[in-house]
């Protein structure tokens, strides 16, 4: 490239008259009351349609109204404001609508779970098991399932947290740019996508078929460990990367060896973030059902030992498997005691998970304030 651009012999060409561009700053715009007015009109027209024709249903009414409203706003905007504004309005409508479409099922699921579950929950429901309760009769509780879920999640965490944190330490502190670290990092992300049922089958093939153990709470924890490990590694990795390099260098400059720097400086600095990541990992595995179906089995009694597996009487229960078991006992009838117990357990499980998620956010926020 030449150092100095050649200066053109001719002066800068003035505007061609043929190229008409808007000199006016005021675009013709729809007044701000137009969109609500059009929507009101759409409601009225939809009402007429539903009254006069065989159209029916609340959901259908909402959809028809939305389509009418967006369609006529776009048309009106096209007529008044021109093509560009009309397209802009149409896509704005699409963006707002997709958010509504996403939010509706969430609200519906939470609403429906609370509606069906709240009636089942009381102190007794939370503190007794299903021992000697006929599934077709009311009564019984989920204490045994809560115990199982908490113990299995705790065991999985005890395995996944240290291994995950150490693996992340390797990836960030030792393995930067090394091919082995890149391979591990790649497979961490691929491992995140392993379906939970496959993790269950794997532990089944390894732990039960090959090593000859029986079903137990711990076997379930092993599968949960497989699912949790990549989540912990990824979360920790992100946190370690945020620790400023100056902090490490400052420690090295004082003659502190690398491993002590990691243990004394790097990990404590990132601790809150790591704890948040682990907590989110726990929240994720707590709702897993498929591997527990294969590996843990069900039991109506309280079994506090996750390693117990001598016979079917000593298996552990877990909340997700309890919900599924009660659902099958309900044989499709939403008004059976079993279905009510399923919803009660579902609400308890959601509450537990949201509690953990909230806790994780709280830790993250507190840490950010302090840092």
């Amino acid at each position: 490239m030449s150092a100095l651009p050649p200066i053109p012999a001719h002066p800068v060409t003035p505007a061609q008259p043929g190229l008409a561009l808007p000199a006016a700053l005021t675009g013709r715009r729809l007044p701000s009351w137009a969109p609500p007015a059009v929507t009101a009109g759409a409601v009225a027209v939809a009402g007429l349609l539903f009254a006069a024709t065989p159209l029916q249903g609340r959901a259908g009414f909402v959809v028809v109204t939305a389509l009418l409203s967006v369609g006529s706003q776009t048309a009106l905007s096209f007529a008044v404001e021109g093509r560009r504004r009309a397209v802009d309005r149409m896509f704005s409508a699409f963006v707002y609508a997709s958010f509504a479409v996403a939010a509706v099922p969430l609200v519906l699921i939470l609403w429906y779970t609370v509606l069906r579950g709240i009636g089942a929950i009381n102190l007794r429901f939370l503190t007794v098991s299903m021992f000697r309760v006929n599934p077709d009769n009311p009564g019984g509780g989920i204490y045994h399932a809560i115990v199982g879920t908490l113990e299995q999640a705790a065991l999985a965490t005890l395995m996944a947290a240290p291994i995950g944190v150490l693996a992340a330490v390797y990836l960030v502190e030792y393995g930067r740019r090394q091919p082995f670290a890149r391979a591990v990092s790649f497979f961490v992300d691929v491992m995140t996508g392993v379906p939970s049922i496959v993790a269950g089958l794997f532990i089944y093939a390894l732990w039960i078929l090959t090593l000859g153990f029986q079903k137990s709470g711990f076997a379930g924890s092993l599968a949960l460990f497989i699912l949790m490990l990549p989540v912990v590694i990824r979360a920790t990795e992100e946190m370690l990367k945020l620790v400023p390099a100056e902090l490490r260098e400052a420690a090295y400059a004082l003659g502190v060896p690398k491993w002590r720097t990691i243990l004394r400086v790097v990990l404590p600095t990132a601790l809150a973030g790591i704890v948040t990541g682990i907590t989110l990992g726990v929240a994720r595995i707590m709702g897993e059902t498929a591997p527990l179906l294969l590996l843990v089995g069900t039991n109506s009694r309280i079994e506090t030992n996750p390693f117990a597996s001598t016979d079917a009487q000593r298996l552990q229960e877990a909340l997700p498997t309890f919900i599924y078991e009660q659902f099958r006992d309900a044989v499709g009838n939403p008004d059976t005691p079993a279905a009510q117990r399923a919803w009660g357990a579902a609400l308890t499980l959601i509450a537990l998970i949201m509690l953990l998620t909230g806790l994780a956010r709280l830790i993250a926020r507190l840490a950010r304030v302090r840092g």
Partner: protein
Amino acid sequence: MTATRVPRRDHAVATRRSSFSAGDRVFRAVSVTAATVVLVAMAAIAVFLVIRSVPAIRQDTTNFLTTRAWLPEEARPIFGIAALLFHTVVTSALAMIIAVPVAVGVALFTTFYAPRRLSAGLGYLVDLLAAVPSVIYGLWGFFFLAPNITGLTLWLSRWLGWTGIVHYRLNNTPNNLSDLTAGVVLAIMILPIVSSITREVFRQVPRDQVEAALAIGATRWEMIRTAVLPFGRSGVVSAAILGLGRALGETLAVAIILAPAYTISVHLTEGGGITFASNIALKYSEASELGIGALLGSGLCLFAITLGVNFGAQLLIRRRKEA
């Protein structure tokens, strides 16, 4: 200040180097071992599924890939993954078709449309969907969604029945325990992951690109089309693929909603179907040794498919990062 100290410290390090490097060697070895667990686990999943399923598949008297039936307990075992594969693909494809555009819309909403104060909270709200366990999605789909979309599916059958895919044949009860219902529930389930990854991609769009578009007089949508979508395209694709991976392997929601049927039919609204994962969940408890082997074989297929899908997504993401 440090400059004067460093030499003395260096000397100290030199005299105590052996003990320091021993500590470092141990710590490094421990962390490498932890990292190796990931590779070992991934390899072990493949190895154990293969060695535990191959003997069973050998006993299959028909073609494992093209047979629809799943009857490993018969005297002459007949089982194959054709029906499983078909419904797994159909339900996941439906989920993608519904979820991806909505997820992109949600991501655009939280990054470029919602008022700043609102957007963090709204993003959190959608992320809450990810925290709901799959078994609860299943219950909701079975007890709430299926009965409540009968009006829609009857309407579809009447007006769009000519397409074939949403047509109720005679003698068919519209109970909606169908591929369509399962696909819709899967769509709701993968929406949070697709939208949160897409949101992160959109957040990384350089501010100066956005401003460049606005400064030449782009409307908000034109700015998105000019600066945001070209930048985020591969990120959106990989988010969608990751969502697909989730949908393919989803177990309980599908097992609860989809009435088991080992058939292949294009009538999406008619009840009945079976996926890899739901078949495992439904059959494992009564399975014989051979039956377990057969289920492990189908699990291996599912593992291979999701592995391929996730591999593709990760390669795409990594290429993007390096570019």
